[in-house]
């Protein structure tokens, strides 16, 4: 079970990571994040993140020409987004490594817990 607070902090990085694989639209991003095991990401959380990334120049957008129905907004990673992803991913991985080290029970604790 994931904590929504964890996802909130790392969602921009995850979005950039999905976009590294190629251009995506909003709903497609939610499905890819879900397929990656991150659970359902609501549009109410995703689009403000995308708007922030767009404002920062980390992603570029284009609108599709619709044959019917609403136009579709596609996002793609920019060189600045690539840099942001690389820097952010290293910091995140370092952080999770330290967190994991702290959270992982030591061998003695495991032995004590064994009946």
């Amino acid at each position, binding site marked *: 079970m994931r904590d929504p607070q964890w996802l909130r902090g790392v969602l921009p990085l995850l979005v950039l990571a999905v976009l590294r694989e190629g251009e995506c639209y909003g709903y497609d991003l*939610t499905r890819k994040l879900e397929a990656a095991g991150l659970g359902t990401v609501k549009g109410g959380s995703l689009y403000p993140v995308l708007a922030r990334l767009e404002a920062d120049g980390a992603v*570029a957008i284009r609108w599709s020409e619709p044959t019917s129905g*609403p*136009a579709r907004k596609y996002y793609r990673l920019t060189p600045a987004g690539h840099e942001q992803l690389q820097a952010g991913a290293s910091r995140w991985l370092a952080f999770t490594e330290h967190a994991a080290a702290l959270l992982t029970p030591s061998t003695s604790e495991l032995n004590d817990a064994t009946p």
Partner: protein
Amino acid sequence: MPRPELDYLDELALELRFAGMDGAQIGSVLEEARDHLAAADQPPEEVFGPAKEYAAALADSQRERLQPRPMSLTVGDLIANGLQFLGFLLGFRGAMIVLLREDAAVDLGPGHLAGAGLLMIGLVWPLWPAMRAYLARRTGFATPVVACVAVVAVFVAVMQWWDEPVLIALSPVPAIGLGAVLIAVCWVRAWRLRDPVQRPSATAGTDHTS
């Protein structure tokens, strides 16, 4: 599109306007929301959360691109409304004299000018705050109606009470012409300042790669 979706998007558009987004930004948000809802086949509240909160989150994410004082009255708005009021007054009174074939002039006294001033003050308070509160669904329709009636009552009383001395006297036809010019100028100004919600075009986009 089902009614709940339309209602939700209308509310979202209003909240985004209150947050300071312009017509192009709102059109972009709405189009993306429509596309998502069409693909997800879920109720909008479930996908985006309450419209007010969603609009606030979107606005927060692009704070530097928002209008600093959204939906506020400017000095230009007030002057335009005052001039428009005088235009209606001149036009209406001139037209009445022409239609009734009276031998009279359209005269404006201090009460008319004070009425225009009072209208401008009444717009600042209580008319505009009452209208904003109504649009934001913080109050019922009665609030702006009561505010409007109160402002009109005050300015009619001032006009009736303070009609001497005559400051301006115009023949009916020039009065109608001047009134029409004032109204037209204010409408052209309003038309130029309008900021309708625009659907994004395929040529719209950003490219930070070049």
